[in-house]
């Protein structure tokens, strides 16, 4: 990939998996909030380097390219604690559920997300990178601004009762740089371990060998407007769910 002049919001197509990625220039931003959930306190400043983040979560069609290339098992489960009907892949044909090609892939564990990222020569975004992409430099609450608005994302208010195709709520639900479906639709796995704020990238919470809980961001079709925002963090103390997916990121520059 030739290195071009990188500007904020520049969109590239990453060759290894063919996904669009959006450039986010590094900087210092406000992470967390003093007025929200307990696990988002206290508000603090974090400085991060430039990176690219997937423009939308990994979809079923994109995940299929990964499982075809590597032979990774398809997401198919029959458990009492999660309603997988409509989200299970077919084990024989190794196909995603009909009509959901452009929906974010769900029923994936953090390890599955990591396997995809490693196949695509990418990684999962850290919690700070995710929040930076969603909140920007001025601490907005939602990717599109400070106020929740209907028809901007897939939460219970949208009454879709399930995942939606990525881009259904574009461009009104996008960040100014063009990142899609950060809030709503599916919770997204990040690379970070679930630890109290303030966030420090080098205190061991980005260690990838720990089996402890990872942070999920962005809320889902199951959540309401109060929970669904760019600040909310969920501890992933389960293996998978029908409203949990992921997107990837890569370092930018040399």
């Amino acid at each position, binding site marked *: 990939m030739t290195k071009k002049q990188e500007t904020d919001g520049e969109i590239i197509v990453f060759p290894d998996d063919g996904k669009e990625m959006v450039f986010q220039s590094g900087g210092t931003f406000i992470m967390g909030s003093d007025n929200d959930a307990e696990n988002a306190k206290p508000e603090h400043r974090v400085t991060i380097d430039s990176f690219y983040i997937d423009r939308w979560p990994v979809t079923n069609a994109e995940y299929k390219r990964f499982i075809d290339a590597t032979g990774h098992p398809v997401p198919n489960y029959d458990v009492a*604690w999660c309603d997988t009907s409509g989200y299970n892949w077919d084990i024989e044909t190794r196909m995603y559920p009909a009509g959901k090609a452009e929906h974010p892939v769900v029923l994936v564990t953090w390890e599955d997300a990591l396997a995809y990222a490693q196949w695509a020569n990418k990684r999962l975004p850290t919690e700070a990178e995710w929040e930076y992409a969603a909140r920007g430099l001025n601490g907005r609450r939602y990717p599109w601004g400070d106020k929740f608005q209907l028809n901007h994302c897939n939460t219970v208010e949208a009454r879709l009762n399930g995942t939606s195709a990525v881009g259904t709520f574009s461009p009104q639900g996008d960040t100014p740089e063009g990142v899609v479906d950060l809030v709503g639709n599916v919770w997204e796995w990040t690379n970070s371990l679930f630890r109290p704020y303030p966030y420090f990238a080098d205190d061991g919470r980005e260690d990838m060998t720990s089996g402890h809980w990872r942070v999920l961001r962005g809320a889902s079709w199951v959540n309401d407007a109060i929970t669904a925002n760019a600040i909310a963090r969920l501890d992933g*103390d389960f293996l998978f769910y029908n409203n949990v997916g992921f997107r990837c990121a890569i370092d930018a520059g040399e």
Partner: protein
Amino acid sequence: MPEESGSPYKYSCRKCPIRNRCIEYSDSAPTIKAQIRNAFANKTDTIDLWAHLQSNCLLVKADEEAKKGSTESLLSQRLRRARENRTGELPPPAPPPTPKKPTFSPPPPPKPLTPFIKASQPDDNLPNDIRDPDQVTRHEIASARASGQRFWLTVQPNGRHITLPIDGSLVLGRYDPHFGIPPDVDLTFEDAAYDSVSRRHARITGKGGIHFIEEMGGRAGIVINGKKLGLGATHRLYEGDIITLGHISLRYSLIPGWIFRLGSKAVTHVFTVAATGETIVVPPGERIIGRSDRFINYQADIDLSHLGAISQKVSRRRALLSQPMGLSRLYIEDMGSGFGTKINGELIMMGKAYPLTPGDHIWLGGCVLAYDVQI
């Protein structure tokens, strides 16, 4: 020492130099003492609350001694000197009794990396032909029910008991105030140092007294006697089985018969708040569990108001504890306000007193209390 205007008492407890010692050595029940300490720490103390101590006020006694002209006792001297040396500032408030997790702290040392057994090691899993609940014959369930045997789990670190229902199911997990209601059995306190038990980690179902444990997708999984339970699988439990949820081990065993034959033995009834580990001793007689409310000057006998977020859903008059005359068995009755009361996962009917067995878990909508006895 100036007293509050309109106070019926000569000396003010709030500004008394020996307040803390007075609370400690008073005859009041530990729950009353805790109430007083908390109320003082939160600045919500009232005259009525101090009345518990005022009935035995040492300063008043010292005054009487001085009036009688008797030689001043050592205590009286100390009190007098303390009074004279007072600077007029309030002594520092008593530290809060319940341990709280700090919301802001320097980066903690990395948690011990536990060797969570990954699901991709099939050789270590339990064999697939586990007898599931539907395969256990009706005959077997009937004979188990007839035998009357009861089982409980013993939490290995601290010996806390979790009595299992004969029929019905219990969800074991941790309580996250931000996401939903507490599970039927709350392991938050034992797991506080590890954060390994998920919100919904395991479900134990009873059929006639035979128990089955079901995997519920917790990230750490369930290990039984060293072998990992497959995703979504169910396994029958046998006496002596050790179940491990993340870092917490539970031993499944028969409840010894003498627990049910306490008769009129003198025992101490104790409740443990599952989320914090705090123990509350239940004084004899009829007691109301609830949440004290200073706005209407109401005090529950067993007050859960200091649990903060956990007790917000507990109503003021939540449940009634009583003991039939001469017997050691403690009974609980739901008083009709709140989300309903569950004992070991089963909702109880209002207006009826249910006997408690050590290890029973009482779910009060906002918090879970574990009941036990001390002989």
